[in-house]
Structure formats: structure tokens, C-alpha cells
């Protein structure tokens, strides 16, 4: 679904991504974990075509949709209008299927997004991304600032879409425990470079990863 080969991205003289290679296969859920400033959001923005790489290449097969960090909903618009714009590139902008997938959004459809809770806003952002009927979904910091119950709900929705529709997911997370629980494979990004990669179960057992990201002594 996503193939990144030797990707380097720079902001002026500063190198944000340095020779990064990674992949997400069809129907796979992959985590990208790492500290603040590691280059995670730079990778996301590059995959979405918002940044131009200085070197290397990447390919995205199928439709890619992004749930950006901080949600970035359109504040003056209602929930329903936000959802419709998620399908801006498509002719079919009917929102009915999203309310079936995410029933908690139904009662909110005519409200603007300003007064919604963080969890509700994240659900709208997820719905907006799903409106484009993506083959691969990139989620940047899904759990940031949300209550554990809300995060668990969102994770359940992702598992369901993955199991039912084969939706591939690239989950960018600081919450490594959540990321490794949800995804079958993971990459660790530090200072713009992939330092560790492998199956989530193996990474969870890796002493360095466990100590740095899971707060465990292994």
C-alpha cells in the first residue's frame, strides 16, 4: 500500500527525515512510534503530498486519507459539512454510511465542531477521513489528549474497519503501548532515522524499546 525508499526530507538546512525506508502492506496495520521531533509528522505530510522529498521516493497504491494531529476540523462548519468535505475529491459525498459506521456522530450532525469534546472531534476527524473511502488510513497522534475509554473506542473502530474492509492503517503514536497493541508491525523513528523495526510483539520485548517507550524494565 505504502512503500517508502531511502526518503530524505529537509526544511532548509535542517534534515527532518534521513534515508528512511518503510512499508505498509495491503490490509496491514503498522505503527510508527518515536519521540517529539523525530520526524513522524514530516513523514505523514510527505506521504500526503504536502512536502517534497529532497531524496528517495515513495509510492502510495490506492486512496490515502489522513487524520491529522490536532484534528484540524473546519470550525465554522457543522459535523455533516466537515464529513462532506472529506469526500471533496469524489462525486459521491453522501454521509449516511459514516453515521452507520460511527453511530455516535448521528446526533451531532448539525452541530458545529467547536463545542464538541476532544473524543467527539477525533471521531469526526476519523469520519471525515473515511468519507474518501480510503484504502489506507494514516492517523497522526490519535490518542493525544483523549481519555483512555475514548481511545479504546477509536481503536475498536479501526480494528473493525481493518477486519471488515481490509483498511490498511499507518498509526503514528507517542503512546507506544497502544500502537504496539493495535498494530502487527512497528517502526521506531528517532532524530529522522528508523532505529528499530519489526513485529510489534518483538518490539515490545526489546529492552531498549520497552525502556524508552513503554516505561518498562525488561
Amino acid at each position: 500500500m505504502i512503500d517508502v525508499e531511502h526518503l530524505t526530507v529537509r526544511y532548509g538546512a535542517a534534515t527532518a527525515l534521513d534515508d528512511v525506508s518503510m512499508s505498509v502492506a495491503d490490509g496491514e496495520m503498522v505503527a510508527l512510534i518515536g519521540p517529539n521531533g523525530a520526524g513522524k509528522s514530516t513523514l505523514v505530510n510527505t506521504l500526503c503530498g504536502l512536502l517534497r522529498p529532497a531524496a528517495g521516493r515513495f509510492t502510495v497504491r490506492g486512496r490515502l486519507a489522513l487524520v491529522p494531529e490536532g484534528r484540524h476540523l473546519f470550525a465554522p462548519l457543522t459535523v455533516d459539512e466537515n464529513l462532506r468535505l472529506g469526500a471533496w475529491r469524489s462525486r459521491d459525498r453522501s454521509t449516511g454510511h459514516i453515521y452507520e459506521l460511527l453511530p455516535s456522530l448521528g446526533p451531532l450532525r448539525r452541530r458545529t465542531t467547536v463545542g464538541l469534546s476532544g473524543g467527539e472531534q477525533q471521531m469526526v476527524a476519523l469520519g471525515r477521513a473515511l468519507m474518501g473511502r480510503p484504502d489506507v488510513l494514516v492517523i497522526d497522534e490519535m490518542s493525544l489528549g483523549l481519555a483512555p475509554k475514548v481511545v479504546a473506542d477509536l481503536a475498536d473502530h479501526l480494528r473493525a474497519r481493518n477486519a471488515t474492509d481490509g483498511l490498511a492503517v499507518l498509526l503514528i503514536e507517542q503512546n507506544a503501548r497502544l500502537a504496539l497493541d493495535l498494530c502487527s508491525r512497528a517502526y521506531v523513528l528517532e532524530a529522522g532515522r528508523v532505529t528499530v523495526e519489526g513485529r510489534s510483539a518483538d518490539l515490545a520485548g526489546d529492552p531498549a524499546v520497552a525502556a524508552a517507550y513503554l516505561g518498562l524494565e525488561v
Partner: protein
Amino acid sequence: MGDLVQYLVTGVGIGCAYALTGSGLVVIYRVTRVVNFAQGSFAVLSALTVTTLLAAGLPHGLAEAIAVLLGGGVGALTGLVAIGKPGTTPQSALIVTLGLGVLAYAIEILLWGDQPRSFGGLSGSVTIFGARIQTHYLLIIGVTAVVLAGAAALFARTDLGRALTATAADPYAARVVGIDVLRMGLLAFAVGGALGGLAGVLVTPVQQVSFDSDVALVVNGFSAAILGNLTRPALTLAGGLLLGVVQALVGGYLSTAYQTEVALLFMLAVLIARAGRRDVVEAA
């Protein structure tokens, strides 16, 4: 009574031109955050174009329509120069529009000279409460009402309007969902240009236009738009009509020499009142 009605109707008519000019500013500002100081030039350019097209034998209606479309095209070009280069700040773009406005003076003088021009509008007159009103004023009011209602419907009821609003609200998120932010900005400039062009085309039969007529239009249009904080079309319409009526009353009962000063005082009063209110909010 007859005089008062006449001043009111003519004031509303001229106020419609201010409202259209102000609405153009609002559309552009809402989407791009650029205050377009070339807004008055669209009106002048379109109005002068009508004089040429009519002289060339084109019928009324067609000549005006072409001129309004030209206003839209020039608007899009202005947008391309002002915001086309990635990373241009709204402040830099504002200066660019100011420069383009001056360039428009040179082009207009070159093509049409520096003398005022006009052309015939809707002929005839009607009597309202004992006042004889030129029918053209009613045309101005009717066309403005239809066009501004259409613009409001565009923003409120269509996905294109929502995409324009979304671009203004969060350009990053707009790009994330696949909206072409630059194209939306150019579209806003085109709509702004057409609204400005329409203002010029409508008002010229009752008020001669020359290359520097843009100053009065943009000062009054900006004053109207300021009432709506440069973002609210309904308040811009109200501001434009209020300015037009007050100016007509001042011109009718006092002197026509003070009309522009009324607009400037109005804008100043709104800015002072708004600044005072913001202080109160910040203090709270």
C-alpha cells in the same frame, strides 16, 4: 416627504454599489486573508469597458455581462499576481494589490483617457410616495439583492462554498482533504472581481466614472466591510446601504462636499468602538 423618499431610494441604490464592492472585499478576505486594495479598480475597469462595448454596437445586457466577466477575469489575474507565489503573506499580497491598483490607473488613462465617462442605463422613472425616482435605481437594488442572495446561497448551501469557507478556516486541513487552496483563493479573487465589476456597471449610468473613481468606491466598500469585520456579508450589506443613505441625506440636506468624509468618520467610529470592546473583552 418627496425629497426624503428620493434621498432614501437613491441612497440605497448607491449603497448597493458600496455593498457589492464591500462584499467582493469580504469574499476575498474570508478565503485568502488578503485585503484587496485593487477592489475599486475592477468596478472602474468594467464600467469603462461597457462604454467601449456599447460604442462598438453591442446591445445593453450583453455589454454589461461581458464587462462583469472581465471584472472576474481581472480579479483572478490579480489573485494570481498577489497570492500565486507560494509563501506570500497576506500583508505582502495587500501591497501587491495596492500596486496593481496604481497600474490600473495607467492602463485606464491609456485606453480611455482621464475624463469621466458614463452610459445610459434603464430609462424612465417611477413615482413613489410623490417622489420621481429613476427606474435605474430600482434595477440596481433588484440586481444587487439577487446577486448577494446568490452569493450567500453559494457559501451556505453548496460544497464549493463550504470548501471556500474551509480554506479560510484551516488551509492545512483543506489541503489534507484534497482542496486546492490556491485555486480556491483565485476563485475568491474572481468572484470578488465580478462583484466589483458589477458595482461599476450598475452605478455608472447614475454616477459618472473616471479612472480614479475607485477611491470613493473602495473607501466606502471597505467601510461597509469593516462593519462586518471583513468577514460577515450581511453586515457588509447593511453597512453599504447605511453609508449610501447617510451620504444621500447629507448630500441632499447639507452639502455633497461632505459625503466621503461621512464614510471615513463612519469607519473611524466603528474601529474605535470595536477597539474599545476588544479592550473590555481582554480586560475581562
